[in-house]
């Protein structure tokens, strides 16, 4: 929000240079974004619009930071001179206060230079004297003001010859032409300022054309009102109009601000437009009340770690316009400033004291008491351990977006407001973007081995199911790396200590099974448009985290040597290797420690057969195995191969 340095200085001559203001405000109140000649761009925080989105408000804060109390002008709404105006608030939920003042003005042409300058510094365009004074009063006090041309407002009801202002919701089909010439139909939720003929303005947001004030205007109705923050916010959003007034009202302004704004506006109009006020009507059904807040010094010290006396605190609060009364040695009774609708309790007050004291001045202190750490969810450390294993296996880690454009799953989650078409869906799998990573990196690398650990999303009834997945992509130009991928996975599962993971072949891919449940898949495919192949795997880590890295038990190291025998054989091409291993797995028992595949060959010279070589590892925990014993065991396995798969031993 833009502020005028000149106006600040006029209110508080001791305000200091622009540079000083910037430092004072940044360290004690709000950040100053920018300083451009006499215009200061101050970031007014959303909870401080009621008291500090104004030059008086900022001046008060600057004064308080420097130890000077800024005295505000006395409010003076003038006296009733007998002109007739009636105001009716029909919507008491939408409007809390409405002050209407009728005033005759001698001139409404151009504003004096001092007003124009301030408006321009604050980014507002001067229009004519009356309108400019409305804006000027707003800049001074923070209260948005509006003026209607008295003559253009319809007469009141049949019997009355007076003007009548009504605050109500728009009726169905009611229309308005706004000041900038936009015609629109109003919905029934729109709060309007109306006369008997219809809407004159969209309350708190934008004035209407019908009662527009121009240079020729001689008599005006000035409005200073207080509206429900939520109503204005919703309506402004819905009709898509943002104005200075709508922004301010959306932030919840105190109803007390209305009389301050009106008082200042009248004062300036009297002087600059030789205004003569008439009726002053203040409809204010439920006056905002100040309440006393108890401030406890001990609590404050415990909360902030600041060592300060009650007298100092009292002084600081007084600088802000609060009144503080000492109740006991460590208790103050504090009545806040009316505009400060953000201050409701002790902590709100504590914040004010801390701010004026200077957050930067607080002495740091280590925690007095040690807090014992909590037990963490296993997945948190498991993810990191998984990453370490994979990078140890030579894979690089990537991070991709959580969004993508196409989603082939059934239960994909769609965004209502995607950033772009190619980011319309939440990823249901990590693989789509890993593929893209491989393709992109093939421009610079002939081999790409990458992984990502991240969340994937899908609908599960009406809830989003979030899973932590591991995605792996391995690819090398002009080569199939499927077995490298499988090797990576096997080593990964071995390292995390879940031996129960199995691979099952199904339709061109391997399913990864854990305790019989599918936890992932591995497959190879052509990389889109590159003529290259990529091997992809995706594993759900949630299912594994429970049993990964479970406590290991030491096993006695066997003293006796192991015996190794290799067996080569031919089997029918149609027999899947997976099946053979399924059967052999059962033979891995007793002294047969492992049976592994060490060679595999398919070729024309073998016809429709394939050749496999197995390595059988045998060992006893009690003694050295003899050749004969080993031979017996191998023979048994050969028999199994023969009877199950009609294997021919080579």
């Amino acid at each position: 929000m833009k502020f005028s340095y000149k106006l600040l200085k006029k209110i508080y001559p001791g305000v200091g240079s622009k540079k000083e203001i910037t430092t004072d405000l940044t360290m004690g109140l709000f950040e100053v974004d920018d300083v451009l000649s006499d215009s200061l761009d101050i970031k007014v925080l959303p909870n401080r619009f009621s008291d500090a989105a104004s030059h008086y408000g900022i001046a008060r804060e600057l004064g308080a930071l420097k130890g000077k109390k800024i005295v505000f002008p006395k409010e003076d709404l003038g006296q009733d001179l007998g002109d007739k105006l009636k105001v009716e608030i029909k919507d008491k939920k939408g409007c809390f206060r409405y002050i209407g003042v009728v005033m005759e003005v001698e001139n409404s042409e151009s504003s004096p230079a001092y007003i124009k300058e301030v408006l321009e510094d604050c980014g507002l365009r001067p229009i004519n004297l009356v309108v400019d004074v409305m804006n000027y009063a707003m800049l001074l006090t923070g209260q948005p003001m509006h003026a209607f041309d008295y003559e253009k407002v319809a007469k009141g009801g049949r019997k009355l010859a007076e003007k009548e202002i009504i605050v109500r919701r728009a009726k169905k089909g009611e229309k308005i032409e706004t000041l900038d010439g936009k015609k629109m139909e109003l919905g029934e939720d729109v709060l309007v300022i109306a006369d008997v003929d219809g809407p004159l303005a969209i309350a708190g947001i934008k004035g209407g054309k019908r009662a527009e004030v121009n240079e020729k205007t001689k008599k005006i109705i000035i409005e200073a009102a207080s509206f429900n923050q939520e109503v204005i916010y919703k309506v402004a959003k819905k009709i898509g109009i943002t104005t200075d007034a709508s922004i301010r009202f959306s932030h919840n302004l105190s109803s007390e601000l209305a009389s301050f704004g009106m008082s200042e506006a009248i004062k300036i109009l009297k002087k600059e437009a030789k205004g003569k006020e008439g009726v002053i009507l203040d409809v204010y059904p439920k006056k905002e009340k100040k309440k006393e807040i108890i401030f406890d010094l001990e609590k404050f010290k415990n909360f902030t770690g600041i060592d300060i006396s009650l007298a100092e605190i009292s002084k600081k609060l007084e600088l802000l316009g609060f009144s503080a009364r000492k109740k006991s040695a460590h208790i103050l009774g504090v009545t806040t400033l009316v505009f400060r609708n953000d201050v409701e309790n002790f902590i709100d007050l504590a914040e004010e004291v801390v701010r004026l004291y200077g957050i930067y001045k607080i002495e740091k202190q280590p925690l007095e008491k040690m807090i014992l750490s909590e037990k963490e969810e296993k997945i948190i450390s498991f993810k990191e351990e998984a990453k370490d294993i994979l990078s140890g296996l030579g894979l690089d880690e990537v991070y991709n977006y959580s969004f993508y454009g196409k989603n082939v799953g059934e239960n994909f989650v769609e965004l209502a407001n995607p950033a772009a078409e190619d980011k319309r869906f939440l990823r249901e799998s990590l693989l789509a973007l890993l593929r893209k990573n491989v393709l992109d990196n093939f421009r610079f690398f002939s081999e790409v081995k990458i992984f990502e650990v991240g969340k994937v999303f899908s609908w599960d009834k009406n809830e989003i199911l979030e899973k932590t997945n591991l995605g792996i992509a391995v690819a090398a130009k002009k080569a199939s790396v499927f077995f490298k991928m499988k090797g990576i996975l096997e080593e990964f599962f071995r390292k995390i200590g879940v031996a129960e993971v199995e691979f099952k072949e199904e339709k061109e891919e391997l399913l990864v099974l854990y305790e019989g449940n599918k936890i992932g898949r591995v497959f190879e495919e052509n990389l889109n448009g590159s003529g290259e192949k990529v091997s992809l795997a995706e594993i759900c880590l949630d299912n594994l985290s429970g049993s990964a890295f479970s406590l290991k038990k030491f096993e006695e190291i066997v003293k006796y040597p192991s015996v190794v025998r290799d067996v080569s054989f031919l089997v029918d091409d149609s027999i899947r290797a997976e099946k053979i291993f399924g059967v052999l797995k059962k033979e891995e028992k007793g002294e047969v420690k492992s049976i592994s595949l060490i060679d595999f060959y398919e070729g024309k010279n073998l016809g429709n057969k394939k050749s496999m070589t197995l390595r059988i590892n045998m060992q006893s925990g009690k003694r050295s195995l003899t050749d004969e014993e080993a031979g017996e065991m191998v023979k048994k396995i050969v028999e199994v191969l023969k009877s199950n798969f009609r294997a021919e031993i080579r």
Partner: protein
Amino acid sequence: MEELEKIEQEIKEALETAKSKEALEKIRIAYLGRSGKLTAILRSLKDFSVEERRKTGAAANKLRTEIEKVLDEKEKKVIGKEGGRGEDITLLVLPKDKVYFGSLHPLTIVGRDIKKIFTSMNFSVAEGPEAETEYYNFDALNIPANHPAREMWDTFWVKSQTDAKDGKNLLMRTHTSPVQIRFMEKHKPPFAIIAPGRVFRYEATDSSHEINFHQVEGLAVDKKISLANLKFVVEEFFSRFFEEKLSFRFRPSYFPFVEPGVEVDIKLPGEEKWLEVMGAGMVHKRVLEGVRIDSEKWQGFAFGMGVERLAMIKYGIPDIRLFYSGDLRFIKQF
């Protein structure tokens, strides 16, 4: 180039047989001396084409460095041997069987650095869902509906399958702060946690803005935790993280879920500019009450910071979008 390869082969053989200091010195003179063979090649470079010069020059220089290194090593060993104990002179071999350790993403590395520092201060790590309800992301954090304060967080909304009730609307969490609420619902104070994770903002991307990025949230609640403690923990964290003597600036700010709200700026040694690195404050009374923690009895601080931002400052990364590019030329640097 062929000449060069020949020389390399010759040297290897010569080195293999050289077993004394004198023999090594002879090799040095024969190849690297003023009229040595390798020196001759380097001298003759000026007669080559630009392309050839570049290629051969680089290779010849590399070879020279290698030989010098091996000669020095051997000399040490030979001296050792002459002192009584010796080993075989090893071969000059350029790395052949290259072993490769993968790179972790810089955000993983920085994330771990952060976790390590906080866990050393007895904070525990908690996580929460990335798709959240409006309640956890906003309402429970005292961010009022229909108030402009909510616009501090531009939100991605999930297209709902059914008509959701108030507060049940689904969205992509805009900060890690909902984890505070989820944690407090299940635990009794005292506790101190950090909650790292991915967050989302519906905004235009540029070199410092992304639609998804990472945050670390912090929360500590006990009976006597004060603003002064917050300052200690924050300063301790950043000083350890950057391993430098930093300047700090704590100034007022506003986040609906804390009061007072604080913005933390740091300045690296020798730099002019203050960098905004963290939002923090004392946990708001209403947030505590919302999770049934008695705010008269318990109090604490909370903070939040962007992981990308810290990584960018630490490593001098100029563009946030690099983190999500999947570009291995970027990742392999870490």
